[in-house]
């Protein structure tokens, strides 16, 4: 996935390079500062990022005030998009680790990941793109370890679902944790994690069945910034699944759901009317008996439909400057 995100950024880099070229009559890789233009304005115009003014200063060894209009300035080379992409991917990994409880269960690793991330940004701002990329890769690796450590250390919660359908049948699904005792009539049985049981109205519990695993999400990629109102969700098929349940939530724990969609296929084009903001989605498989399996890990995306200018296509966590 990282390489995919980097490719997306390289594509963005091409767009930015094209912008830079249009604004750089002074020669390849350079641009001329126009009258009344600050370095921040220039950085925003040619790189889409005002913070990159620091990089232009470092590249051109400018200290103190901005140079006079007409000065030809060197621009960052092709290694910049890779450094920015690595930072964004690492930033996303740090966020996922935090979402997964690393603040509480892997605080030291998370702090190290954040330090490496900050060092990556600092290196980039002084135009040391190779160091920026190396530190971002380091932050990414530490954040992954922090997330894993957090998942291993935190208490394993019990997760179960109970539903009653229109015919009065009860379904009990044990997604995680300890076993659950299901009682109906005079019969009780134990339902373990990963199992489910159906109880017809006025009947005894049927034998437990294995739940289907969660589908693997494909689209949108984790941390994607979406600027169009139609969201393309896609996931890997699960053998035996009759339907898939797609849940959209405002939080990574799924406690603030906003939509639930039921799909027969492995994709869904969702014409969103949701307000701009950060959302998470979860996928589940449902078998032919209507038993719903555990949810996939949360995937995050950001809607920027109203803010979108129709030009920007990004991957990676949004909302913060690179």
């Amino acid at each position: 996935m990282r390489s995919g995100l980097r490719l997306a950024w390289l594509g963005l880099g091409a767009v930015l390079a094209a912008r830079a070229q249009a604004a750089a009559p002074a020669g390849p890789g350079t641009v001329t500062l126009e009258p009344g233009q600050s370095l921040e304005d220039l950085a925003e115009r040619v790189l889409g990022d005002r913070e990159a003014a620091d990089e232009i200063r470092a590249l051109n060894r400018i200290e103190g005030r901005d140079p006079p209009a007409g000065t030809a300035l060197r621009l960052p080379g092709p290694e910049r998009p890779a450094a920015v992409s690595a930072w964004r991917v690492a930033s996303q990994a740090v966020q996922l680790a935090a979402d997964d409880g690393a603040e509480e269960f892997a605080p030291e690793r998370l702090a190290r990941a954040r330090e490496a991330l900050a060092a990556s940004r600092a290196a980039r701002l002084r135009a040391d793109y190779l160091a920026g990329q190396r530190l971002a890769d380091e932050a990414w690796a530490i954040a992954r370890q922090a997330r894993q450590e957090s998942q291993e250390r935190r208490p394993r919660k019990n997760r179960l679902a109970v539903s009653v359908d229109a015919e009065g049948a009860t379904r009990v699904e044990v997604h995680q944790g300890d076993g659950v005792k299901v009682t109906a009539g005079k019969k009780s049985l134990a339902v373990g994690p990963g199992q489910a049981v159906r109880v017809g109205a006025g009947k005894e519990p049927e034998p437990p069945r294995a739940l289907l695993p969660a589908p693997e999400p494909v689209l949108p990629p984790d941390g994607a910034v979406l600027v169009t109102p139609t969201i393309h969700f896609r996931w890997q098929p699960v053998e035996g699944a009759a339907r898939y349940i797609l849940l959209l939530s405002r939080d990574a724990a799924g406690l603030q759901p906003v939509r639930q969609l039921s799909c027969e296929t492995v994709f869904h084009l969702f014409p969103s009317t949701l307000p701009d903001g950060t959302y998470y989605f979860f996928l589940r498989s449902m078998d032919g008996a209507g038993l719903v399996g555990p949810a996939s890990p949360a995937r995050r995306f950001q809607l920027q439909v109203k803010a979108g200018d129709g030009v920007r296509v990004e991957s990676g966590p949004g909302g913060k400057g690179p």
Partner: protein
Amino acid sequence: MVFLALVAGCDNGCGPAPVADAAAEDAGEQEIVVSARLLAAEGKVAVRRSQTEEWIPAAAGMALQVDDSLRTQRDAFATLQFEEGGTLRVGPESLVRITDLRLQVRSQARRSTFTVEEGRVEAELLPLKPAGEFRIRTPSAEASLNHREVAFQ
């Protein structure tokens, strides 16, 4: 048997709950009735208070007591927090009643029971303490998590 007036809910902001009397089942262990809190409500979600017939619109932050009911319409969701780390997500077109919410003062073990009349709920809770219980009842079955039974399994 112990009767207590309650002013406590879950550690993370649930409560206050009204004065209630609760009978402890285990001699020597004081129990109090606690409240739950509506963490989130999306779409048309309504609450019916105990011993009333009127459904009132629900809002996030609302405290819910034993015997209160919660109903969600189509495309609506609600999430209840009934203990620290314990949530009940109520899906669309569901009707749920809070049947019992009790806390053992000394052991901090909780006994929580919800009744699902229709629809779907998803519960998430931390591992039970000894003497802790969690139950979901429906018109045709009961699902229970019980520390002793878990240990036996």
